[in-house]
């Protein structure tokens, strides 16, 4: 019995990437895929969001931004690393300024690889994330009691 999975609101942040995954994420939010069917809303506000979709790698510039957005989200929350750069740093991993995947900055729950990541993969990843969200919500409710 989880309401979190029925209403996963997300926020999307694009780190240092080639913008390919970024475009794919936006694509999957178009009416064609109709994510609102699952109750998904792109909120653009960390305080309202349950799922944090990150595309692109983490570097020294955006490390704090990613952390800050994550901190401002309320529990329960789930992080989805979209695309290979977000997972591991991808082709940029050896660049002088890149630190690596998103997990260098914040705990990642679901990795969705791909270059660029396909909308189908994103949707799969989000559905996986939703399950984790429910688990976390149940745990939070358990803690409250």
């Amino acid at each position, binding site marked *: 019995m989880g309401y*979190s999975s029925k209403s996963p609101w997300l926020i999307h942040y694009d780190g240092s990437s080639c913008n390919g995954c970024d475009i794919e994420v936006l694509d999957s939010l178009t009416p064609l895929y109709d994510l*609102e069917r699952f109750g998904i809303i*792109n909120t*653009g506000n*960390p*305080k309202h969001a349950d799922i944090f979709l990150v595309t692109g790698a983490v570097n020294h510039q955006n490390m704090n*931004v990613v952390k*800050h957005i994550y901190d*401002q989200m309320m529990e329960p929350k789930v992080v989805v690393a979209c695309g290979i750069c977000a997972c591991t740093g991808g082709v940029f991993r050896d660049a002088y300024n890149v630190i690596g995947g998103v997990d260098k900055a914040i705990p990642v729950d679901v990795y969705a690889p791909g270059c660029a990541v396909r909308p189908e993969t994103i949707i799969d990843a989000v559905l996986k994330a939703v399950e984790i969200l429910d688990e976390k919500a149940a745990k*939070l409710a358990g803690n409250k009691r």
Partner: protein
Amino acid sequence: MATLGFLVAFPLLVAVALMVFRTDSARDPIVIGSAAVIGAASVVCAVQFMNAPTSFAVPYDFSFAGNILSAAIDLFLCGLVLAFALRYRNFAMLVLAIVQFIASIWCASMAIAPEDIMAEPLYIDNLSIIMILIVGLVGSAICIYALGYMKDFQHHEEAEAEKRGEHAPDRRHQFIALMFLFLSGMFIIVISDNMDWLVAGWEITTVCSFLMIGYTRTPEARKSAILQINLNMVGGLAFHIALILIHLVHIPLSIGGLIEVAQSGEAEYLIIPILLLSIAGLTKAAQMPFHRWLLGAMVAPTPTSALLHSSTMVKAGVFLLMKLAPAYLVFPAASVMVVMVGGVTFVLCSFMAITQSNAKRVLAYSTIANLGLISACAGVGIAEAAWAGIFLIIFHTVSKSILFLCVGTVEHRIGSRNIEDMDGLFSRLPRLTRFMMLGILGMVVAPFGMLISKWATLVSFAETGNVVFLILLAFGSAATFFYWAKWLGKLAGVAQKAENVEAGVHKTEWFAIGFIAVLMLGCCVGLPVISLGVVSPYLERVFGSNPQFLGVDNMLIMAVIVAFIAIVFLTPWGRASKKRRVEVYLGGTCTDPDSRRFHGAMGRTMTSVKRNWYMTDIFPEKTVTAVGIIVCGAVILMAFAASFIFNPDVLTGGAFYIERIPRLVGPELPGLLLGIVVFAVVAPVLGCLLDGLDRKVSAHMQGRVGPRLLQPYYDVRKLLAKEQASVNAVDEAYITCAIIFCILAGGMFISGSNLLMCVFLVTLATLFVIIAAYSARSPFADTGADRECLQVMSYEPMLLIMTVGFFAATQSFDVASLLGLDAPIIIQLVPIFLGLLFILTIKLRKSPFDYSYSHHAHQELVKGITTEMEGRTLAKVEIMHWCETVLFLMWTGMFFIWDNPISIVVALVAVAVVWFLEVFIDNNSARTKWQFGLKSAWLVALVVGVVNLFYMLVTPFI
């Protein structure tokens, strides 16, 4: 009689004593003690003469001596002004002073003629008692306040003078002595029936305020003082000429007598004198075109402003108009003049208050605007209007004096009276700010007295069919909401790490502010008692009718709401101190949330700054002032011209109006409570389903499947289960208030109770959402809240026009009256219905008017007004939105209800069509600029209001 004598004489003695004992140690006990004595004496006087209007017969010699003394005072003061005019070398002042001196001599020579000595020169009734209490309690509290304030003031002056290498003389004894002299003058005005005596008090207040405004002796103060005396001399002159004219036709100079004469065959002699007396009252009440003295008076130390503009000086003006009120029923020219001047002043000064950032100037404009409203009420001359006017006087006095005193103290604490600098005051001066917020609420929102009185004003103007004024009132009220709400927002911002600078506030200042706040809450809670026990008997006697606007049950509910709001603001109730604190959202990273600093591009630290909206391009102060002066000046000239053109039969023919007594058909308290419970249970369910349907239908319009029907329910359940965190401890409490008010509003509507109160409560709910958003001090939430204020300002006129239309069609403000109609009100109110449809889009926050918040994907404001609300708070906002949707749709449905069960079906169909139309508009239009929203909404309200109300209210006369 002894009490009255004491009230006049005692402050004089105190003034003399204060001139003698000049040290702080002697002054403090004298002032505190005598203020207490004056307060007590005014209460004793009130108890003694309550509901026992009395004329006091005095021995002939005493009365004669009184006349001579008043004439002497009058001449002395004229001489004093003349001396000042010579000293300041001001030509206009000199000319006016000379003319007035001549008039005074003429007047005095007739005043001491034996046949004009009155046997009963003093008179007291409930109106005088109210004024005595205002002057005695609020006025003397301000005197106490002045002690602490002037210490800081003098300290500041000395520091400034030292910088220039000069010495600042300590003239505080003069200042405080003047204040007591002023009180004495006020007492003379309110208890004199003999106008020769009254004019002496009138001149005392004028000259005292001249001296108090000029107290600092700076060039600016001198300029303001000269402006004040010049404009008030015009009024004084009008007063004197009126007295001379009355003397010449040998009518006794009793105010009460004037009314009797006006209603007799000799009325034609009074046409010009009444016009002149009205002008005297309007000048003193700072109405356009004479309003500029009040703005200039703001340079004076704050106790002056508080005394002059909240409790005494300006109230003397409206007191005179109020006394003349029954006469306005006889003299249409004077009545139209006073109503139009008051109405135009109200709306234009409300507009100009929006453009001001100086707190004292905002207060000044708001004072002028409210006095305009009171004057207009007096000018109508019927009992309902007088009821409204008297309550406006009471509530304006208490609310405004709290605000003046708070602004004065705040200025000494933070060194500024600019509203922009009051950011985060909620944490820096916690107690003072809460009092200030209470004062503002008292000025603007239901259920505090101000709005109840505005409501009564609405009724009385609907009765007389004064469409022009109704429209002015609707727009002025909307502007009023805007400037108060944005100030309230500045105050409400909670800074996390602010330093509390409240320690230096003097005890005397705390006492005065606290005392007046208690008075204000007392007046609000005790409104039914004051109305039934004090004001009604007065109206019964003077106007011979006793208006009933709203049932006692409604008043009770309001009293409960006042108590509730006081609890929210003044106690720690609802403070979620256990919640996790989070920083405000600033897009990127936030380095210091309190000062709103964030890491910007190129590694720079940026600061986000947000200022209030002033709309100087929409309401340019200079142009608006010019318009006001020209229009009001023209109205006054036309009134005089009319007095010479038309024959006396017309001029004393009386105003024509149709008695429209509101029918009270609403439910009793149990019915109301039942309605509230039903609404609280049903509306969220219905609203949730409607919201789900909305999203489903929208999705289909966009070629999608869309979410499940119960999606909004799932969203809210999820939000309720989220972690509890917030940027401050108060926002959830405000949102809880908002949802409660919204449910109350809905409950009142479905139980068939008062529609106007329902509208006001919805506005109150919105105001609390706005305060909650402002409290975060986040740039996104602030901008969202600003735009929400703007939206309220845009749709408020239309809502007021809708309720007036409803009243005109059903003869009642109670929704239950619909069930007794032969035909639905839509038949008469098609234009108003269309106007309602227009603003419904704004109210439901649908595109193209979703400025403050949008349920669509990204907008430039992130999530606008809800940006900083999370978890449970956001869930409450959603639930409130459901309730609002249901309520607003019911408003459209009520147009189709009549005395027939089928009408329910018709109404449901109509509501369904309206709802579908709204969804369609939402999906097929892009967001416009706010300028378009404001202008189009006002244009629609104006056109629709004029057309439909004219049809409804004026056709019965034809």
